[in-house]
């Protein structure tokens, strides 16, 4: 393996191997199984399996669990594991997509202001007490979702009008400006309503603590729809790595692709942020780790980012709820705390370039 191979953008020999894909699937299932079987309540693995089987239509199994334990398995652990997996997959895929369309290794899902917009939306809902805490359909996720999309939309139009050549750089700068502007408003509102500071702070650090099926059903369609769109464009994204002019000469319309990708990744990010708050770092470290370990073609990075993003998030959430059990560590803290050293390790030990 020669280090300069991956510099060739259109590296045809970089194929997605079936074993890697299977490895990703196995990692998700393994981490999910471990996560399902651990928690403050002492429930045997057998009972958990029977309980889950019993819940499927047409299947009968007797888990002999008490009502409370049965609820812990079905209403608490399982939705939390599934939601964690969906959020991780979504954020990692969105991050990888942003990195591809902007040809910028520092791009993350919050690049175009999604985090700031979601933060402002959630803060507004929390400060005005619009929510009733009823979960997925509540005002907080709704406003976070709208805020994230609105922020990206503003960024997109600002970035376009400033520069007729529509360079990705102007879009990124617009994102920085919009994010600081919205954060300023959010901070001001928060300052005027000091009593909600802890709630907003908790939201910003990310949460899977109160995950339920409601959140899963809210996120699932966005996660599925957008990942299909992104994955179907993986080859075009590879071509775009050459640069806009080169891609155009190969018959691709870079602006159009970028627009579709940005809309898809932003929708996915907004939905993830709405149900789980701002979970940082996943969108950067997972795709880069994949690039360093397996290769930088988007045909590899995009699907593997999804799978390993899911298993990473489930694992991190498991730590968050077990390390100091029975209390919680906010998930956003652990993603960075565990993710950063691991990423630096991979960065230093890999001979590939980003």
């Amino acid at each position: 393996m020669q280090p300069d191979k991956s510099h060739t953008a259109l590296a045809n020999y970089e194929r997605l191997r079936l074993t890697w894909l299977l490895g990703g699937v196995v990692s998700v299932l393994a981490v999910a199984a471990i996560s399902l079987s651990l928690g403050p309540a002492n429930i045997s693995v057998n009972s958990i399996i029977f309980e889950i089987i019993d819940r499927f239509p047409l299947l009968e199994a007797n888990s002999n669990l008490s009502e409370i334990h049965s609820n812990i398995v079905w209403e608490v652990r399982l939705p939390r594991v599934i939601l964690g997996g969906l959020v991780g997959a979504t954020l990692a895929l969105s991050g990888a997509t942003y990195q591809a369309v902007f040809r910028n290794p520092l791009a993350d899902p919050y690049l175009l202001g999604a985090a700031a917009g979601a933060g402002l939306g959630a803060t507004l809902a929390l400060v005005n007490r619009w929510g009733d805490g009823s979960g997925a359909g509540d005002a907080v996720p709704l406003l976070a979702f709208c805020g994230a999309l609105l922020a990206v939309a503003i960024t997109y139009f600002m970035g376009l009008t400033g520069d007729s050549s529509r360079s990705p750089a102007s879009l990124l700068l617009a994102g920085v400006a919009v994010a600081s502007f919205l954060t300023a408003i959010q901070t001001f509102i928060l300052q005027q309503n000091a009593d909600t500071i802890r709630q907003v702070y908790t939201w910003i650090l990310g949460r899977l603590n109160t995950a339920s099926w409601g959140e899963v059903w809210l996120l699932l369609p966005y996660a599925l729809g957008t990942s299909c769109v992104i994955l179907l464009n993986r080859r075009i994204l590879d071509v775009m790595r050459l640069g806009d002019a080169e891609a155009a000469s190969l018959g691709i319309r870079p602006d159009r692709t970028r627009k579709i990708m940005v809309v898809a990744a932003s929708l996915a990010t907004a939905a993830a942020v709405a149900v789980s708050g701002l979970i940082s770092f996943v969108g950067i470290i997972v795709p880069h780790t994949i690039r360093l370990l397996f290769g930088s073609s988007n045909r590899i990075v995009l699907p593997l980012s999804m799978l390993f993003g899911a298993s990473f998030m489930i694992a991190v959430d498991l730590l968050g709820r077990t390390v100091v059990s029975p209390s919680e560590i906010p998930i956003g803290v652990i993603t960075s705390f565990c993710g950063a050293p691991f990423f630096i390790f991979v960065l230093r030990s890999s001979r590939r370039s980003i």
Partner: protein
Amino acid sequence: MFSSCGGEESITADEATADTQAPVIEEPSDDNKLVTLEADEEVPAGPQSIVSLSPTATEMLFAIGAGSQVVAVDNYSYYPKEAPVIEDLSAWSPNIEAIAEFEPDLVVLSDAGVQEELESLGIEVLVLPAVTNLDGVYEQIAELGVATANVDGAGVLVASMRAEISLIIDNIVTPEKPLTYFHELDDTLYSITSGTFIGQIYEMVGLSNIADPADADGSAYGYPQLTQEFILESDPDLIFFVDASCCGQSVEIIGERPGWDVLKAVRNGTVIEMNADIASRWGPRLVQFLQSLSDAVALVPAG
């Protein structure tokens, strides 16, 4: 601007004839003021324009009879309702000029953040930080009594609080095995341990806190975030929630949370809303808080 002694006197003006012996300490500027000074049995001494930037201190000031000496309170000091709330006066980010504008002769703070700045303007400052136990409450009330020249009022308040609280505690019938409770601060399941001030109040009535193991080493300063699974597993006898006003929670919404329907507290109707202000302050209304605890314990079915 607010005149320093306007308004509050009108109530007592009718009693003007009752007592004419009280010494006059101020030159009368108009007839009404003179009348009111005479009307009070006690001559107002001590500070006459108090600014309180602590909701707890505001409650205490009014309860010891210093209310008429208070000219301005911060935007969260909305109890009692006579308190002169100034919407722009923030205790969270205090503005020295905004405080100084009231020309206070005493400012009560709950943290020492702007103490030095105020003192450099020659303003008397009393800092009454959050207390750790009930004795701390009594001490602060007494301190306020001294600082505002309402020593008697403070003494009466402390005595009545002590009496009422011991009456409530004597009348509580607690089962042999202590009842367990979960105190919900917000809908992300932050709670308190028995090490906190309010946790000690629960302990006084013999309740056992499910959150204690969650912060055994004190690293969360008594405010751990519980996992949902742990709450279900603990299945507390009582759930007290203070997040009705912050987070729109209600008995119904808590009962409808996924998986919570089978909890003892939900089935027995012992999910109880508590006043968030009382539970987060350390003021005279703690008596009401204890009374609600006592009522709640009575709701728990025996056995």
